[in-house]
């Protein structure tokens, strides 16, 4: 670099030494990642112990650097402030060096690696060099010999600061931290990916249930930004690839799958995941994981035997109106017919249940029709073993708030079940021990909320063969 450096370096020997040292230091910083490679392995614990002060130490240079432009501007009016700015900038440089050192110890000691860590590291290096350059360029600016270099350097440094700090924040809090609750119009303006999901596997069990669990609980440490233990869990391929300790998932073998082992350890165990006091996985989430692994850990399978996950209720339960005024009429009706119309709870808005068990054999379509006047308030009808027939569907269609219908052991054949498709609240339909056929059930497929249809011992679902 001889001649070029000669031209740029000042002639004053003291200054010359300073510049030489600064150049050497910068070169050292730039080469650091090659000298002490971040190999993703864990190193001595004391490195990590010291390194963990990095998140604390970074606030020193951040605070000081933000102060510098303010002091410089205010210094136009008060000379003492401008003097202070020089000291603050120099202190900021020392702070940068400290933070950089600790950060490197943290990354090296913990074995964290990944593109996020790398970006953050380079940010820190560029930032430190920027601050150093600013320190060196400032005397020219103060003397008035060069007016543009220092402000430009300071500008670049502050930008680098912002970017590095954001990268660091993403490592700690996850990349979606800032955008998660951003107002949608703003997201569109900034072109933030609204949903960052793994592919569009859509209906697969992995996409619907496994990936969201990993995404919510694991990806902040095992993701693109930070690959603790060399493991990434943010995509199916990465999950199956495993980490440094071997495969996370062994299809068909939950007991051999490290991921399952780690999440089911006692929470105070050293290897328990999610680590560092984060909330453990919920029991059902572990059940899904185990079932998914047991049944081959497929990326595309849509259903797992033995696992039925009820989607969060599509429609919130509609409160029914207040039937208090009708109570005398309801009482009279009960005395006449013997069937009971009981309140679900003390809250009238929880509705009424029709019980017919006392008079089952005498309760037919005509009797049911008499209850139609209370239809909006009835949320459940127990018509098991009554004399109702397919004609009852027309009546039941008027019970718009029905959530459950019991028709087990009745003479219904399913002819006219289509009339029930308007019952948007219906979640339960019991047709066990009837003559209902599979064909008759077809219209029910359109009912999204209808989660539980029981067909035990019907032509649609004959009794299971003996298990002995």
């Amino acid at each position, binding site marked *: 670099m001889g001649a070029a450096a000669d031209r740029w370096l000042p002639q004053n020997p003291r200054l010359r030494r300073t510049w030489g040292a600064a150049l050497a230091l910068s070169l050292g910083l730039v080469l650091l990642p090659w000298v002490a490679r971040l190999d993703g392995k864990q190193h001595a614990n004391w490195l990590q112990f010291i390194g963990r002060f990095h998140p604390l130490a970074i606030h020193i240079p951040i605070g000081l650097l933000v102060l510098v432009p303010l002091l410089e501007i205010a210094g136009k009016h008060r000379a003492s402030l401008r003097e202070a700015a020089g000291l603050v900038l120099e202190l900021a440089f020392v702070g940068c060096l400290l933070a950089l050192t600790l950060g490197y110890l943290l990354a090296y000691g913990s074995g964290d690696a990944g593109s996020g860590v790398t970006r953050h590291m380079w940010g820190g290096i560029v930032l430190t060099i920027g601050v150093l350059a600013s320190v060196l360029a400032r005397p020219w600016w103060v003397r008035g010999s060069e007016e543009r270099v220092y402000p430009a350097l300071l500008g670049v440094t502050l930008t680098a600061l912002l970017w590095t700090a954001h990268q660091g924040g993403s490592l700690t809090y996850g990349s979606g931290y800032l955008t998660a609750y951003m107002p949608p119009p703003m997201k569109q303006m900034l072109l933030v990916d609204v949903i960052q999901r793994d592919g569009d596997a859509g209906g697969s069990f992995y996409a619907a249930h496994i990936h969201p669990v990993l995404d919510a609980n694991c990806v902040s440490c095992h993701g693109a930004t930070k690959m603790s233990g060399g493991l990434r869990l943010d995509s199916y391929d990465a999950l199956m690839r495993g980490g440094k300790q071997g495969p996370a998932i062994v299809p068909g073998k939950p007991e051999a799958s490290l991921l399952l082992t780690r999440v089911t350890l006692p929470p105070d165990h050293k290897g328990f995941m999610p680590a560092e006091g984060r909330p453990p996985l919920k029991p059902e989430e572990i059940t899904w994981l185990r079932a998914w692994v047991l049944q081959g850990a497929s990326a595309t399978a849509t259903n797992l035997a*033995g696992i039925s996950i009820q989607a969060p209720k599509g429609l919130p339960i509609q409160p029914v109106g207040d039937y208090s005024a009708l109570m005398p009429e309801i009482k009279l009706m009960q005395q006449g017919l013997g069937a009971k119309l009981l309140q679900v709870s003390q809250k009238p808005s*929880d509705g009424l249940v029709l019980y017919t068990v006392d008079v089952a054999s005498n309760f037919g379509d005509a009797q049911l029709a008499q209850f139609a006047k209370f239809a909006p308030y009835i949320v459940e009808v127990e018509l098991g073993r009554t004399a109702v027939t397919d004609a009852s569907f027309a009546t039941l269609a008027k019970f718009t708030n029905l959530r459950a219908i019991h028709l087990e052991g009745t003479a219904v054949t399913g002819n006219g079940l289509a009339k029930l498709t308007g019952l948007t609240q219906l979640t339960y339909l019991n047709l066990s021990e009837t003559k209902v056929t599979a064909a008759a059930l077809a219209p029910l497929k359109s009912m999204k909320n209808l989660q539980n249809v029981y067909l035990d011992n019907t032509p649609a679902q004959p009794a299971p063969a003996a298990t002995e």
Partner: protein
Amino acid sequence: MKQHPCCTDPEHGPNVMGLPIPTGLKQEWAELETRRCFLGRAGKVLGWAALASLMGDRMLTDAAHAAGPAATAGAAAGMSATSGDSIRLANFAPKAKRAIYLFMSGGPPQIDLLDYKPQLQGLYDKDLPDSVRGQQQLTGMTSGQARFPIAPSHWAFKQYGQSGAWVSDLLPYTGQIADDIAIIKSTNTDAINHEPAIMLMNTGNMNPGKPCLGSWLAYGLGSMNDNLPTFMVLQTKLNEKENNQPVSSRLWSSGFLSSEYAGVGLRSAGDPVLYLSDPQGVDREVRRQMLDAVNAINRQTYEELGDPETNSRISQYEMAYRMQASVPELADLSKEPQSTWDLYGPDAKIPGTFAYNCLMARRLAERGVRFTQVYKRGWDVHGNVTGLLPMLCGETDRACYALVTDLKRRGLLDDTLVIWAGEFGRTVYSQGGLTKDNYGRDHHPRCYSTWMAGGGIRPGITYGETDEYSYNVVKDPVTVRDFNATILHSLGIDHNKLTYNFQGLDQKLTSPVPASVVTGLLA
């Protein structure tokens, strides 16, 4: 102005029954009157008889006066509801409408059934560290033992289902419903002996005299079926080879609640209900006339004395009359499809077996009975564990599986809560001699395993943890109070709101000590 028949001052004092006050207060007044009546009768001895007879047939209440003899059943129902209709409703929309409680009396050994402790195998015959036992007072049966040698389970365990729950080889059928049940490993109780422990489980109090769970439910929720009792008890026939602890009717007593809320037992052999069939020559019409006459007399007594137990008697006679029609249909298993027998196994055809009772419990659930408790005795395995447990599990395991599976198939598990529990667990150390082939286990209150399924319970989970000796709970303890509070919650009852004022205290199932619903068990 009408006077109480025993009132000694005919000229003064208002008629409480005529006042515009809440019916609950009137009821309380009427109950006080029974005490006054007692004093009044005592007074007769002292020479007040004349005055009492002069009072004649004054009526207590206008309402009761108005109710003619024809409206027998209606009046009985009306009067029994004087405690206030508003009480007899769930506090919030319930997940379960009914419950079946499989009570394993005697204390099943959790270490051999559901609490898997593989590391104990390496500690065979080692002494239980004193630090684990702490200052605990043991029963007289083992407190004198020189040492407390650890007895690992004789049986291997396997993981079942998607949940991967560990279940003993003694319970292969229960393993098959691992994904339907929530196993609670951290149940713990305050009592170490059978009677207090079983009272605590059933009534929330070790002392007799409190209403049991089923009675509270009957009182709090009322009936779904007028033709069967709200609360029924099924006892399993004794197996003489097992160590049977007595099970008394205190366990289904209604305590201080009206006796119409007490559990009604079905006999385990012979006729389910004694003298249910009308004797020869007495047809149903004659029976009806007889009951009407008896009820009329009883109503008169109530009008005179105001003792609510008189009404309970009337309603029980009426229930018995209706059960004459409903029980034969209930006990008639001839219409059960073959799939039922395939599921429950051949035992279910023999009345009084646990399998038969489980099938009966399902039939009761179908018929709208709120609460059915099935008792199985014999779990008190102080010795000969390897001889007794296979027998006990053989009698119960398949039936438990069958019941849960049957309810699930028929779409009843959604709103039926099934509970499997004993009154306490058993010790990890052997009572008496420990050999490779056999051992005994003493009572252990600090942890025991139970399970629940259905109605609002999260399926396929294991809740709570015990230490490596299955001796102390180390995570998520569930006290008996919490256990009962959770059962009530599942049925739509806030355990703090279901109260009954007795002896100056708003009594409740979960006792005055604070209890909490175990939310981790809820779906």
